[in-house]
């Protein structure tokens, strides 16, 4: 069902793109559009909530009750160095599929080689709750006693490989130190064309597939705001750096 929903959304975007696409032989000034989709998965598996269906690199079964994160300053870079910022701050909430499909944006023609974004909220916006939209504190992504946004929030349960009972899992990742800039290579020719860029985010890589192993056992409650959390933030930051990939889909 969920897969069908995704396909439906994708088709909607595709058909919208075709509808707005222009022909090169007309006098109408042609335009280029791009939209970005954040596709969250666990080693290629779709995310279903509240089911202990996933196994991390440490061999522990785990689940999701919440998966939300902020991306900021999503920017396309052309081969001549020109940059086009598409989105300032966006909250990606796996429970709200629409939030994973970001708005279609008109872009200048050119050859785009990189998509850049931050995982997290930039330090200028990170320390005030007096904000609207995706940064509205109502989204539950802010520490109110030490004003700052939770950049990545994963809550759920896990079963340790050594004991059979499910325990809660709380990973709240943030702080200015945790802000991560990512730059993913793409190859996208924007000329009278419409594009969709899919950013794949493998949650398992965040916990150590190919990276620093972060087992949940004895390590299941992280709030990012005590000094004890610093080593964890740094490990997670390294892992996040390897957790994202980009693919471009082009429609004339």
């Amino acid at each position, binding site marked *: 069902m969920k897969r069908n929903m995704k396909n439906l959304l994708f088709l909607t975007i595709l058909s919208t793109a075709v509808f707005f696409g222009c022909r090169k032989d007309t006098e109408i000034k042609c335009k280029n559009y791009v939209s970005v989709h954040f596709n969250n998965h666990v080693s290629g598996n779709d995310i279903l909530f509240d089911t202990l269906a996933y196994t991390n690199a440490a061999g522990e079964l785990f689940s999701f009750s919440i998966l939300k994160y902020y991306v900021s300053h999503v920017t396309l870079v052309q081969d001549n160095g020109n940059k086009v910022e598409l989105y300032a701050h966006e909250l990606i909430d796996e429970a709200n599929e629409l939030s994973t499909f970001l708005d279609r944006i008109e872009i200048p023609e050119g050859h785009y080689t990189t998509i850049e974004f931050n995982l997290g909220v930039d330090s200028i916006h990170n320390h005030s*709750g007096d904000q609207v939209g995706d940064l509205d*504190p109502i989204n539950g992504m802010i520490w109110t006693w030490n*004003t700052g946004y939770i950049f990545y929030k994963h809550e759920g349960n896990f079963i340790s490989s050594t004991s059979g009972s499910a325990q809660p899992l709380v990973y709240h990742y943030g702080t200015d130190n945790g802000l991560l800039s990512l730059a993913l290579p793409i190859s996208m020719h924007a000329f009278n064309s419409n594009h969709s860029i899919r950013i794949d985010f493998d949650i398992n890589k965040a916990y150590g597939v190919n990276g620093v192993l972060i087992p949940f056992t004895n390590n299941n409650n992280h709030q990012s705001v005590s000094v004890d959390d610093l080593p964890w933030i740094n490990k997670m930051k390294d892992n996040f750096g390897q957790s994202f990939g980009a693919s471009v889909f082009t429609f004339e």
Partner: protein
Amino acid sequence: MKSGLYILIFTAFLASCKPEVEEPVYGTPYTLVIPQGLPNMAIPANNPMTYEGIALGKRLFYDPILSGDNTQSCASCHLQINGFTDPNQFSTGIDGVQGNRNAMPLINLGWQTKFFWDGGANGLESQVLGPITNPIEMHEDLANAIAELSADSDYPSLFKAAFGSEEITSQSIMRAIAQFERTLISGNSKYDKYIRGEVQLTQQELDGLNLFSDMDKGDCVHCHVMGSTFSDFEFRNTGLDSIYTDAGRYLITLNENDRGKFKTPSLRNIELTAPYMHDGRFQTLLECVQHYNTGFHYSQNLDPNLFFATKGRMTIQEMEAIVAFMKTLTDTEFITNPAFH
């Protein structure tokens, strides 16, 4: 060099051409009356004061609708008669749980930039979120508060009058309460009247005033800056413990030098805001002065002003005079002002 200058000029030109995004201002502009002796207050450009905003903020401040079970309001733990603090050592939240710090008085907040004892909130607007959502305080979910306010018969029109839209947001709640809080100005104590030449201080109060500033006696003025706010609003370790039970400012900065440091509170209306210190450990002002005379503990982060202070430098009469002076900072107009309740 020259081309660098051109770039600078060009950048300046660009910056000046950038259209300023002015937020629409709704409501009737309100001009704060700043008492003589207090500095001008910087109002955030994105939250200008209006009569409607202040009235809405006041109503929200006193309305238990902002707590999880609609039993407590901001005013439950910030009582005007006590200088908008809680006479209890620790406040009890809606779930019957107590915190571990004394509620802060709400006086002259517009001159402060960091809030809570550890400065964890960077603005008055952001501060509002803390007590409302804290599970051991009002324990409310913001979405729930907004739903309740939106369903109320009065609030949507009050929000519209203040912010131009009936749609209630966490931002408009924060901004309204912050506007009301900025009006909580105290500047008409006996001390203020004395400075304005309207009243005389007693001999004991005058002695206290001098001892308060005397670097070899009270030496209070380093932190409780004389004359206006009576606080530097910095974070200091006042030697309450040699082993810190509450890490204070460290919890926010993660800087070891900030362990056991807390915000310097204003001394205005200090007579009304017992108990004292971040943990409410002292019941009387004399105990506080005694602490700074003989009671403070040495530790790595002890404030240098205390580190170099001589223990036992004041007599009991001198300490009592300082207390008498501090009581001249009581502003009875502030605690009875009908605009605040």
